[in-house]
C-alpha cells in the first residue's frame, strides 16, 4: 500500500469519524477523565492556598490514614451504608408491587402512574425544604396531625433527636425516588410477551405462579438495574440531605457526599487533598458495592 492510498483512506475514512466523535471525546476527557484522574493525584497531597496560590505538597498516604481515624468520616460511612442497604430494599419491594398493579391495570392506573412519578421532577432542594417543614416539631404537618388524633406522645422532634433524623432522611429520599424504580420496572414488564402468559394460563398455571415463574425471571435483569441504580443513588445523594438536615444534628445524618463537600469547600479547613482521598475511597466502595450486587444477583438467576 503506497502512501497516497493511505492518505486518501485517512481523508475518506478517518476524517469523518474524527469530525463526529472527536469533539465529544476531547471535551469529555478534558472535563471528566482528567478531573477523575486528578482526584486520585490530589488524594496523595495536601492542596492548600499559600499566599493566594494553591500549593501542592506530597504527603503520601497520610490523608488515607487520617481518614480512618476521623470520627465524623466513620459516622458518615456508617450512615451512608445503612441507608444504601435499607433504601434499595424498601424501594424495590414497593416499586415491584406498584408496577405489577399498574401492569395489570388497576382502576385509575394512569392517574397513579403520573402521580407517583411526580416527586421525581422536584429538585432535591424543594423536597428537603418541604419535608423540613413537614417534620417541624411545633407546626409541621406530621406532628399537628398526630396531635389532632390524640397521639401527642408520638409527636417527636423528628429532626432534632439522635435516633430519628436518619430514618427521616431515608424515608424522604424513598418518597422522592420510588417512582423512578417503579417506572423502570414497568418498562421491563412491557418486554414480557403476552403469548407466554396466555400459554402458561392455558397450561393451568394460576396468577401467582405466572408472576413467580415467568414474569420475575424475565424481569430479573431490570430488577438488578433498579437495585444498582438505587444503591448508587443513595451513595451519591447530596441535595435532599443538604436541604433537609444539612448533615445534622451533630452529624447524625452526615453522609459521605455531604462531608466531602463540607471538608472541601464548606469549612475553612483549606485542604483539597483530604476530601479527595475521601472521594477516592468512596469511589472504591461504590464499585465494590455495584460488583457485589451484580455478582450475587446474577448467580441467583441460574437455577
Amino acid at each position, binding site marked *: 500500500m503506497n502512501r497516497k492510498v493511505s492518505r486518501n483512506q485517512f481523508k475518506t475514512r478517518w476524517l469523518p469519524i474524527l469530525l463526529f466523535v472527536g469533539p*465529544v471525546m476531547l471535551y469529555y*476527557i478534558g472535563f*471528566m477523565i482528567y478531573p477523575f484522574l486528578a482526584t486520585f493525584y490530589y488524594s496523595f497531597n495536601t492542596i492548600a492556598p499559600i499566599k493566594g496560590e494553591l500549593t501542592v505538597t506530597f504527603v503520601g498516604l497520610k490523608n488515607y490514614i487520617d481518614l480512618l481515624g476521623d470520627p465524623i468520616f466513620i459516622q458518615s460511612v456508617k450512615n451512608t451504608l445503612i441507608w444504601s442497604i435499607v433504601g434499595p430494599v424498601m424501594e424495590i419491594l414497593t416499586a415491584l408491587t406498584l408496577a405489577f398493579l399498574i401492569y395489570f391495570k388497576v382502576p385509575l392506573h394512569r392517574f397513579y402512574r403520573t402521580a407517583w412519578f411526580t416527586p421525581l*421532577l422536584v429538585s432535591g432542594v424543594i423536597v428537603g425544604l418541604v419535608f423540613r417543614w413537614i417534620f417541624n416539631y411545633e407546626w409541621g404537618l406530621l406532628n399537628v396531625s398526630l396531635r389532632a388524633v390524640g397521639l401527642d406522645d408520638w409527636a417527636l422532634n423528628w429532626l432534632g433527636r439522635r435516633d430519628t433524623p436518619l430514618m427521616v432522611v431515608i424515608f424522604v429520599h424513598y418518597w422522592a425516588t420510588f417512582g423512578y424504580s417503579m417506572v*423502570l420496572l414497568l418498562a421491563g414488564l412491557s418486554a414480557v410477551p403476552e403469548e407466554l402468559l396466555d400459554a402458561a394460563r392455558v397450561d393451568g398455571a394460576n396468577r401467582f405462579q405466572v408472576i413467580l415463574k415467568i414474569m420475575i425471571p424475565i424481569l430479573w435483569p431490570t430488577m438488578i438495574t433498579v437495585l444498582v441504580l438505587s444503591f448508587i443513588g443513595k451513595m451519591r445523594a447530596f441535595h435532599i440531605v443538604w436541604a433537609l438536615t444539612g448533615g445534622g444534628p451533630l452529624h447524625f445524618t452526615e453522609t459521605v*457526599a455531604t462531608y466531602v463537600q463540607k471538608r472541601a469547600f464548606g469549612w475553612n479547613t483549606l485542604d483539597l487533598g483530604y476530601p479527595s482521598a475521601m472521594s477516592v475511597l468512596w*469511589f472504591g466502595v461504590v464499585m465494590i458495592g455495584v460488583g457485589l450486587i451484580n455478582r450475587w444477583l446474577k448467580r441467583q438467576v441460574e437455577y
Partner: protein
Amino acid sequence: MNPSIRLTSRDTSFIHRFQGILGKGGLTIILMAFTLIVLVPFIWMVIMSFRNTGDILNNPFGFPQTLEFENYRKLLFDPEIGFGRYFYNSIVVSGGALLVTLILSTMGGYGFGRSRYDFKFRGWVFGLLLFALMLPPQIFFIPQFTMMSRLGLLNSYWSLILIYAATALPVSTYLMSTYFSQLPSELEDASQIDGCTHWQTFWLVMLPLARPAILTVTLMNFMNFWNELLLAITLVTDPKMRTIQAALMMFVGENGSNYAIAAASLVLSMLPTLILYLIMSDKFIEGLTAGAVKG
C-alpha cells in the same frame, strides 16, 4: 422505538382477584391513601404559598382565608429580593449547558451510532465515554473546581455551563447513538450519491430525523441542570450569580421565619419542570428511564 411504558397487560382478572381478597374498593382505598402521602407535600406547599406566615403557624392545616397573592407579588416585583435574577441565572446556565450538550452529543451519537463510521477501537472509546455514567459526582468535582479556578471562570455562568454539559455527555451521547443506529441507511446512501458531504448528510438529512431523541435528551438534561445543587454551590459563591436552587437554600435560611414567602419561592422554582411534565409526561418518563433500561 422505545420500550413503550404505556403497555399494560390485556389481562385484568388478576386485579379482580386482588380486589376480591381486599373487599370491594379496599385496594382503591389503600392506593388512594398511598397516593395522598405522595401528593400531600405538594398540595401543602401550594396552599402555604397563598397564606401568610401568621396563619400558617396558627393552623398549619388550614386553607387560605383569602387568597394571598402578596407572596408572589413580592417575589416577582420586589427588587430587594431579586428572585427574577436567580431565575434568569438558572435559565442562562441550563440553556447554555443544554446547547453545548446537544451539539456535542448529536454529533458524537451520530459518529458512534452509524455502522459506516465503525472503527477498530470504537468499543473501547465508547466504553470510556460510558465509564462516567454511574460514577458519583464527588469523584470529579474537586479538580473541576480547581480547573475553573485556574481558568478564572469561578462565579461565572461559564463554569456551570461547561461542567454541566460535561456531566451530561455520557448518557446523552448514548441515547443519541442508540437512536441514530436504528435509522435506516437508505437516506444516508441517497444523500451521499447526491453529493452531500458527511457533514451535510448529518446536518440536513439525519439530524432532522432524530427529533424525538433530541426532545428526550433536552427534557432529561434540562430537568437535571435546573435542579442541580452540588456544583451550583461549589463553583458559584457570589450571591448575585447563584442559580435558583442555591438561591432557595439561601433564601429559606435568611427568611427562616417567613414560611409563606419561602413556600411561594419553591412553587415558582418548580414551575418550569412541572409545566413541561404536564404537557408531555410520557416523553418525560421515557427520557428519565430510557438510559437506564437499555444500559
